[in-house]
């Protein structure tokens, strides 16, 4: 594996990590699953494209505005869709179904608002590529890797070191006990959804200079992020990152050594294998009922 492939694998792993973290965060905190993550990835990319490319803002401002908008979108999604369904006391599968519905709405809404073309997200840096050890590398790829690492570290610190993070973890463990301790459980859950949405949105924005922006860009990548979360141990944040990096390297390795047609066969084959043989994933996530 040469430098180009190594950076590509790290970048893919970083992008998948953010998506997988979104899945795991939601599951860890609420025990629910969302299949809208792929299309939230797309929505984040479109917002970034609108602020950065269409409105001509600087990239950090465009990223910040997109993150804020997506955070509130995630919270509103929880408040007006997820919580309404959960409060009805129905089976949790209905929440999953609602997120599938939302993903279709998001795709169609993006087509209506932005159109059905592939749009170009300009490079984050002035230079389209730089030379590292004689190899041409896109700075956007390196920045994507860096931002992914920063997001993961920040999320870890937020959950471990802040009061709000502790409240979120407490809510995840026992909603009733957390509530009796004065924690605003609803707010804590909404923030979890907001953060999960921010993570995928950042992934979408960072990845779009390399792949363009289009309404169906999140379909496959969302599924791969999900596979990464399961392989790592569904609901375990370290597992999500490990599973994602593993998939990033696997994807590049399979494509370069065999055929790209086989990469999804490998990825989803491993997903099924993990579900059958070791459903707890690499990090022994708590997946068994009782």
């Amino acid at each position, binding site marked *: 594996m040469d430098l*180009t*492939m190594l950076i*590509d694998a790290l970048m*893919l792993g970083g992008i998948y990590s953010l998506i997988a973290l979104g899945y795991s965060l939601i599951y860890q905190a609420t025990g629910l699953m969302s299949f809208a993550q792929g299309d939230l990835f797309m929505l984040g990319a479109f917002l970034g494209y609108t602020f950065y490319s269409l409105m001509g803002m600087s990239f950090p401002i465009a990223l910040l505005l997109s993150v804020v908008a997506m955070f509130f979108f995630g919270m509103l999604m929880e408040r007006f869709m997820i919580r309404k369904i959960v409060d009805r006391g129905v089976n949790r599968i209905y929440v999953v179904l609602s997120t599938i519905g939302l993903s279709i709405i998001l795709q*169609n809404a993006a*087509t209506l608002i932005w*159109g*059905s*073309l*592939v*749009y*170009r997200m*300009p*490079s984050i840096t002035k230079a*389209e*590529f730089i030379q590292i050890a004689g*190899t*041409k*590398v*896109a700075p*956007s*790829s390196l920045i994507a890797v860096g931002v992914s690492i920063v997001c993961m570290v920040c999320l870890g610190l937020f959950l471990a070191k802040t009061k709000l993070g502790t409240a979120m973890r407490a809510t995840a463990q026992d909603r009733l006990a957390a509530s009796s301790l004065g924690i605003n459980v609803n707010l804590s859950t909404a923030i979890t959804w907001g953060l999960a949405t921010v993570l995928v949105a950042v992934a979408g924005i960072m*990845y779009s*200079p*390399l*792949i*363009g922006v*289009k*309404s*169906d*860009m999140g*379909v*496959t*990548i969302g599924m791969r992020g999900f596979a990464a979360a399961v392989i790592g141990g569904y609901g375990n944040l370290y597992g999500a990152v490990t599973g994602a990096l593993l998939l990033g390297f696997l*994807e*590049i390795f399979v*494509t*370069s050594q065999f*055929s*790209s*047609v086989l*990469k*999804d066969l490998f990825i989803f084959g491993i997903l099924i294998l993990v579900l059958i043989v070791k459903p707890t994933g690499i990090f022994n996530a708590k997946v068994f009922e009782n």
Partner: protein
Amino acid sequence: MKKILAVLLALMLALSFVSCAQKPAESQAPATENKNSAAPAAEGNIKIGLYGPLTGPNTMNGLAMVQGAELAIKEINEAGGLLGRQLELIALDDKSNAEQAVKDVTRLCEVDKADMILASVHSTHILASADIIMKNKTPSLGMGTSPTWLQGEGKDYLFRVLPSNQLSNIAIVNAAKSVGATKMGIIYRADEAGTTNQKSLTKLFEENGLELIGAEAFQPNDTDMSGQLNKLIKAGMDGLVCCGTTADPITILNQLKKTSYTGKVFGAEIFSPYTIKESTGGGANGVIYAAPYALPKDIAQANGELEKNFLTNFKAHFGKMPESDVTYRTYDAMMLYKNAVEACKSVDGETVKNALDNIEGFEGLAGTFNFKTAKDQGKHGEGILSCRTYVIEDNNDILIDDAKLAEIKQNWKK
């Protein structure tokens, strides 16, 4: 109360018997009888069916299909219609799904009684629904580029409105040879059209003494192609042919930009939209592609009066320039249908089919349509028998000839 209920029940029973009694009479109609030959139908609108990806991953192409058809129908209707009748468009969404396409065609033929069908951009969908088209004797003008759906028996009612990808591939290989590319790589979408393209190119490379150093596939929703590209570059590729849909070149070119590749890029009509040039930030410059048309950004760049009029009317109607070459395809299809109906003075399926088969020297946006010559050569349904070649320079499409190819060869520093 009971009496009223009894009367109502009796009435309902009587009505149901009447309707049941009528059904066998309809079903006993001879299979060969054409719906359009009946006198009452002649008084209504001429129904133009359309099926394509109006939602889902290929929405752009589906919507472009509708736009081209809408514009042509508007122009025809404003000029008095066909045979004194107005045209009416019935557009159905196949969601890029072959099973749905078959359902759509069945509905268009058997429920809506379409007089003509504008068939999908997906070659597999046209192939899957060919039997229904034949059974109903409904002329169908298809937008797919794969040669397969016009090959073999039972395709009499199918016609193609642009060059097949076999013709584009011949033009691509000729261009590659002319500019001095020797080690060819292919990156193709893993679908029916992409795979047939790849096979056709592989054969053509062999026949023309070009070395194929690798053919890499990608899945329709793939976002990362760097692995495939790097593999081909490492193998020493100096000519890359891209086969896919209009959305694919942007991803490929954007990812190619971050590699050390200095070779040439070739392709077909997927490079023709001006949006490709804008969306790759100059990454499309140098691409050589074979296509019946290049979509200009401005009306002033139109290739001839016919395209100029089309673009002027399109912009007046939709307020923008066409974003996909598929718009050109459906527009040409409608104008071919108009020509055939006016020639045979009928909308009867079989008569129109024969009239389409006799079209010769019809000037469309894609070039000169010669269905008659094609049929005489054993290529029924292929209207266009040659393909133009363009090079992208400064984000503009330049029509190329031998002199231009020689100039590109001279300026190319491998």
